C-alpha cells in the first residue's frame, strides 16, 4: 500500500480538523469527497508531509515521514497540488515547473524533457514561455498540475484540481488522472462528485473530520437508491444519503 493512515488526528487549537481517520490506498485514483470544512485539505496536507499530525500513524510509499531521510525520499516521489497555489508572477510556465522539478531533487539532465512532457500533458505547450502573471485561473491550475506530475510521482495528491477548469479541460484532466492511476496512487480531494464518478476507482467521504464512507463510486451510488436524498445525479444522491445518515447518527448519539 502506498498510503497507510491509522487513527490520524490533527487539531488546530480546540478544533479537530481530522478526527481519527484510518484508510489505505494502493495504485489507482482515490477520491476524497466531502463538504467544505470536512477535513479533506488537512488530511491531504498531512499526506503531503506539509502538516504534522497531532496523533496517529502515517506511512507513505512504505516509509515513515517522521524521519528526515525517509521524508526526503517520499518527497522525491511525491506530487502535490495545494488548494491555494502560490506562484511567482515573473516566472514563465516552464521556469515554474522547472523550479519545482529541481526542488524535487530530479537529476538535472532529466529535468528539461520532464518539464516539457508535463507542460504538454496539461495542454499548455503554447504558453510555456508566457509569464504566469498573464495566465487565467484555469491555466494557473494546469501549471500547478504540471509541477505536481513533472517527477512522474508514485503518490500524487491533488487538492481541488479541477477548480477553474472549463469542461473540455476537465475531461482531458480526468483522462490524465486515469493514466496516472494505472501506475501510481492518486488522491484527489474534491467536492465535485462528477470528477469522482468519471475518474476514481475508490472513494472516501469525509464529514466533520471523519470518514463516513469508503468504497467504490458504484457502492456510493447504491446508497442513494430509493433513499429520496437530494441530488441531480445518482452519485450525488448517494453522497447526500451517506452524509444525512452520518449526521443523524451523530445527532442521535449526542
Amino acid at each position, binding site marked *: 500500500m502506498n498510503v497507510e493512515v491509522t487513527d490520524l488526528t490533527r487539531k488546530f487549537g480546540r478544533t479537530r480538523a481530522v478526527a481519527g481517520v484510518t484508510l489505505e490506498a494502493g495504485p489507482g485514483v482515490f477520491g476524497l469527497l466531502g463538504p467544505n470544512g470536512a477535513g479533506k485539505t488537512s488530511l491531504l496536507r498531512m499526506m503531503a508531509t506539509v502538516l*504534522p499530525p497531532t496523533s496517529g500513524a502515517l506511512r507513505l510509499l512504505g516509509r515513515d515521514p*517522521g524521519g528526515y531521510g525517509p521524508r*526526503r525520499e517520499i518527497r522525491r516521489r511525491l506530487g502535490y497540488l*495545494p488548494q491555494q497555489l*502560490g506562484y*511567482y508572477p515573473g516566472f514563465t510556465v516552464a521556469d515554474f515547473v522547472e*523550479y519545482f522539478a*529541481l526542488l524535487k*531533487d530530479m537529476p538535472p539532465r532529466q529535468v528539461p524533457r520532464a518539464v516539457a512532457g508535463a507542460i504538454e500533458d496539461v495542454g499548455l505547450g503554447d504558453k510555456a514561455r508566457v509569464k504566469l502573471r498573464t495566465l487565467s485561473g484555469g491555466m494557473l491550475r494546469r501549471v500547478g498540475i504540471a509541477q505536481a506530475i513533472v517527477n512522474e510521482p508514485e503518490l500524487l495528491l491533488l487538492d481541488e484540481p479541477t477548480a477553474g477548469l472549463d469542461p473540455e479541460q476537465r475531461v482531458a484532466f480526468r483522462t490524465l488522472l486515469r493514466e496516472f492511476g494505472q501506475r501510481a496512487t492518486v488522491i484527489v480531494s474534491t467536492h465535485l462528485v462528477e470528477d469522482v464518478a468519471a475518474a476514481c476507482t475508490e472513494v472516501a467521504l469525509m464529514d466533520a473530520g471523519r470518514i463516513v464512507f469508503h468504497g467504490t463510486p458504484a457502492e456510493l451510488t447504491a446508497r442513494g437508491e430509493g433513499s429520496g436524498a437530494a441530488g441531480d445525479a445518482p452519485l450525488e444522491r448517494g453522497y447526500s444519503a451517506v452524509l444525512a445518515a452520518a449526521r443523524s447518527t451523530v445527532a442521535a448519539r449526542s
Partner: protein
Amino acid sequence: MNGDDLLTGRYDNAGPHDVDLNRVWLGVAAQVWCRRPGPVERAARRLLRSPGLARALVTTPSLLLGWVIATAVVLIAGAGFTLGTGQPWVALLAPAVAAVGIAYAYGPGIDPSWELSQSMAVGDRMVLLVRALTVFGLNAALGLAASAASGAAAAVTFGWLVPMTAVCALALAAATVTRSANVGVAAGLAGWVITILADQTAEGRYTAAVTDPSLVLPYLAFAACCVAVVLFATRTPRGTQ
C-alpha cells in the same frame, strides 16, 4: 533512434516510419523552453552541490538585482554622509539594511509557493539557511566596502559586524516565528534603534553601539539565542509514527 538523434542528424539507418513526432517535439521543447542557468546559479550549483538549492538561492527576493542595487545605493549615501558629517552613518545603516534583507529572504509572506516548497525534497530549512547566509554575506561585503570608502576609523569599520549579526538574527527569528517578513523587519529595525538610543543615553554618543567592546559578548549571546529560536521554529516535526 530518439528525438535527440533526429535533432542532431544521427539517424542514418532509420526510416521515416521510425519517427515518433511526440518524442521529437518533446526533445525540441526541452531545449527551447528550459532556462539556461546564469553564471551565479552555475557557481552556486558547484558550491552547494544541489541544483535545486542553487535555483532556490537565485530566486531569493533580497538577492535580486534591484534589491542589491537599492542596498548599495543606501550604503553609498551613508558613506557620503559619513564623509560629509564625520558621523559613522555606514556603521549605523549597515545592520538595519542587512536585517531588512534577511527578513525578506524566505518565508510564507515572501515566497508565493511556500506551502508547495514545504513538500519538496530540498528542505525549506536548508533553503532558509542558504538564503540567510548569502544575504548576510553580501550585505557584510557591501557594508565593508562602503565603510572603507567612507574612511571611517578601523574600530568603526569592523565594529558594526557583530551588532549586524545580532540585528539580523533578531529579524530572522521574528520573521520565522511570526511567518511575516514585515514583522521581522519591524523587530530588527526597532531592536537596532532601541540599542543605539540606549547606548547614546548611557554613554552620550551614538557610536557607542558599534564601538563599545563590552557589548560584543552580549551581541553574540543574543544572536545565538535568536538562532536557537529559528532552529526551534523550523525544527522537523516528529512523532508521526
